[in-house]
């Protein structure tokens, strides 16, 4: 069929519709006016106008992470594109599929320092999975389809498509391409069967196995989470998760040891240290997870399943690698295990040691008196909401770690947090994106009073689109996580970590058309949460919590899994010179 010619802008919209896009997050400007006009003339795609381009990207991440579908962003050239860079980097670090469309000055102006010109493909080259500068309208449709393919295939990530204004204006024919197969980019999905067999043998014969899972299980889709349960059931192995993997395995399952790593549980970190077989599924041995490398799980054999082979042996040497999609590999492992009627080795001794570590009760906290302990606030929030299966987003800091420790997740795609980049300001826009993708869900941003101010302007976006998102601030009047490190490393010299001149958050929320609630004492906590949940619009809760609490347990930088600090009285205020340089 020879269709009639369309403008580049119309081709973009048509391609997005063909790709099943229903929502895009963006902010207009000179270099994308043709696309905005094309959006005006259609009604299949809903455009969500954010208040800052960084928030558009985080919102798209929230949408993607909670729905499993790629997020789409549209921003103008120059400052629009540079404002988006933090979000793009965040999505790269956390493997979130995004397509980011940026306007660019007309092709004949590129390189002339034209108004609002920047080298978007240069700037985003190393913070995107791939990027394009499209110089011909005739290529536009194919590039957009290819961009979606690359964003979602293999290890997901953000793809940037930079589109000069004259390319948006010129016309060409557009045809929906048949199935895309990239000529060079073809990630391997099925794992090598011989390697999978070896892994199954190792797992079946292990006396002290552990499944160490990460965000890859969630990226692989809900089927992978189910297969993970099957494998855990069959193998009796305990399961621990990274920050990014929370929800892929049910927190209530007796085989779950909780999160591992810097703020992980005692039992998870000790089990990682003492295991004889580690099966890593879609995680990447990040430094927050491993602690000091030369003391990391010294006596285990390690199997690493990942769709991205560049993650193999990057920081930790493993004994067996399986390149493939975690879901597919799990499926083969479960099938093989069943077909061969395998039985796990005797793990009695292993589980009795795990019970011993669990008895440390490393997440314990004491709620006494009127002051609200932050952990307690999260626990009450969980009690009040978990039956509704809420989607939780976070900002970055202590509140994020406390939420990871004390809010239990039973399902994947319910926990949205900035892991790899640790971007303050992620939570509110991510909640907005998640709410748009899941209109019926309860979406709560568990925030810190410092982080929330980094994208506070997005309160208006929620108001505009009548999104009933909730922001629950654990207000400790400190950049708590920074202060915690100052307590640990600099003898408590709190340089610039006090949150001075805070706004009256209740009034601020009201000014944006939100309901504002302040919770000051423990006796107001449950009522405040109930009031938040009872209101069907957006609610901002300013929950004043204990100001000096620090987040434990903790593996200090430069320490190993078995050198965890369980409580503040173990903190000396100084670290070795060699550890001071570690992040």
């Amino acid at each position, binding site marked *: 069929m020879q269709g009639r010619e369309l403008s580049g802008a119309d081709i973009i919209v048509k391609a997005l519709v063909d790709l099943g896009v229903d929502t895009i997050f963006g902010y207009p400007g000179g270099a994308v006016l043709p696309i905005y006009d094309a959006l005006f003339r259609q009604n299949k795609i809903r455009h969500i106008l954010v208040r800052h381009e960084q928030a558009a990207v985080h919102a798209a991440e929230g949408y993607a992470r909670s729905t499993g579908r790629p997020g789409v962003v549209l921003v103008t050239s120059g400052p629009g594109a540079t404002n988006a860079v933090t979000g793009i980097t965040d999505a790269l670090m956390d493997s979130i599929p995004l397509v980011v469309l940026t306007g660019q000055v007309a092709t004949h102006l590129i390189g002339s320092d034209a108004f609002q010109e920047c080298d978007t*493909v*240069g700037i985003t*080259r*190393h913070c995107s*999975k*791939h990027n394009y*500068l499209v110089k011909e309208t005739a290529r536009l449709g194919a590039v957009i389809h290819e961009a979606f393919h*690359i964003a979602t295939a*293999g*290890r997901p990530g953000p793809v940037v498509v930079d589109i000069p204004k004259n390319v948006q204006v010129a016309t060409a024919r557009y045809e929906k391409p048949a199935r895309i197969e*990239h*000529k*060079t*980019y073809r990630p391997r999905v099925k794992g090598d069967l011989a390697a999978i067999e*070896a892994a199954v043998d*190792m797992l079946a014969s292990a006396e002290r196995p552990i499944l160490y899972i990460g965000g890859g299980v969630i990226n692989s889709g809900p089927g992978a989470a189910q297969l993970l349960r099957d494998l855990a059931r069959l193998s009796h192995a305990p399961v621990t998760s990274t920050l990014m993997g929370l929800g892929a395995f049910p927190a209530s399952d007796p085989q779950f040891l909780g999160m591992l790593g810097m703020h992980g549980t005692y039992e998870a970190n000790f089990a990682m240290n003492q295991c004889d077989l580690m099966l890593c599924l879609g995680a990447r041995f990040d430094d927050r997870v491993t602690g000091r*490398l*030369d003391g990391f799980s*010294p*006596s285990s*054999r390690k199997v690493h399943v990942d769709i*991205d*082979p*560049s993650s*193999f*042996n*990057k920081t930790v*040497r493993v*004994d*067996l690698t399986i390149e493939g999609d975690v879901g597919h590999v799990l499926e083969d492992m479960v099938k093989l295990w069943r077909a061969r009627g395998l039985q796990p080795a005797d793990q009695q001794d292993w589980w009795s040691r795990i019970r011993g570590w669990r008895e440390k009760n490393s997440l314990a906290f004491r709620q006494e008196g009127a002051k609200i302990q932050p952990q307690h606030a999260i626990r009450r929030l969980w009690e009040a909401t978990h039956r509704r299966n809420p989607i939780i987003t976070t900002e970055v800091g202590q509140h994020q770690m406390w939420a990871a420790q004390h809010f239990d997740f039973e399902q994947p795609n319910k926990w949205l947090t900035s892991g790899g980049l640790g971007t303050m300001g992620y939570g509110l826009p991510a909640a907005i994106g998640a709410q748009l993708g899941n209109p019926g869900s309860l979406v709560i941003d568990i925030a810190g009073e410092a982080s929330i101010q980094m994208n506070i302007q997005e309160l208006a976006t929620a108001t505009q689109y009548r999104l009933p998102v909730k922001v629950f601030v654990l207000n400790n009047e400190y950049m708590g996580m920074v202060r915690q490190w100052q307590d640990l490393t600099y003898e408590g010299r709190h340089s610039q970590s006090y949150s001075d001149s805070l706004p009256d958050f209740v009034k601020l929320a009201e000014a944006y058309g939100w309901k504002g609630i302040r919770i000051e004492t423990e006796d107001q906590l449950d009522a405040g949460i109930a009031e938040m949940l009872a209101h069907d619009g957006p609610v901002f809760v300013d929950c004043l919590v204990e100001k000096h609490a620090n987040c434990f347990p903790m593996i200090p930088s430069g320490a190993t899994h078995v050198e965890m600090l369980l409580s503040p009285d173990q903190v000396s205020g100084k670290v070795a010179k060699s550890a001071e340089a570690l992040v």
Partner: protein
Amino acid sequence: MAPRTKSLFPEEISERHTLSILVDNEAGVLGRIVGLFSARGYNIESLTVADITQDEAVSRITIVTSGPRRVIDQITAQLDRLVPVHSVTDLTELGPHVERELALVKVAGTGESRAEALRLAGIFRARPVDTTTQSFVFEISGSTVKVDQFIELMREVGLVEVARGGVVALSRGAEAR
């Protein structure tokens, strides 16, 4: 499978590897590759690039790099996941391959040293491609070691300047790799 040695990366000895990378000949592809090396702190000892197909659609980039085996494996994996990269071949790992480098070497002098330069050039099969009464420009090709040696010798007989092309390499045998 026997458990491997437990000490971390005990064999951190730097090795020199020649990587042959086939890429889509698209704008920015060289930037992607060079940027990957600088962003991740890998070494580049030599880099050459040119398109190699009739339609100019594919280029071969030859990179000589050095680092511990673990880093070389990382470099290969990181290159391989770049979208426009068709293939990465570690020629050093693959085994028999040929490596050649081209250099232009300018030498100035008269009398005895001029005669000596010409004599040495003969031994190295370097051809004079420009001649004045005061100078030569020699063209030499061969292994990096041979080119290095020739340049070293020319220092003693009036070396003025050098332009080197960087290493190009192919695997031996009938197959394309």
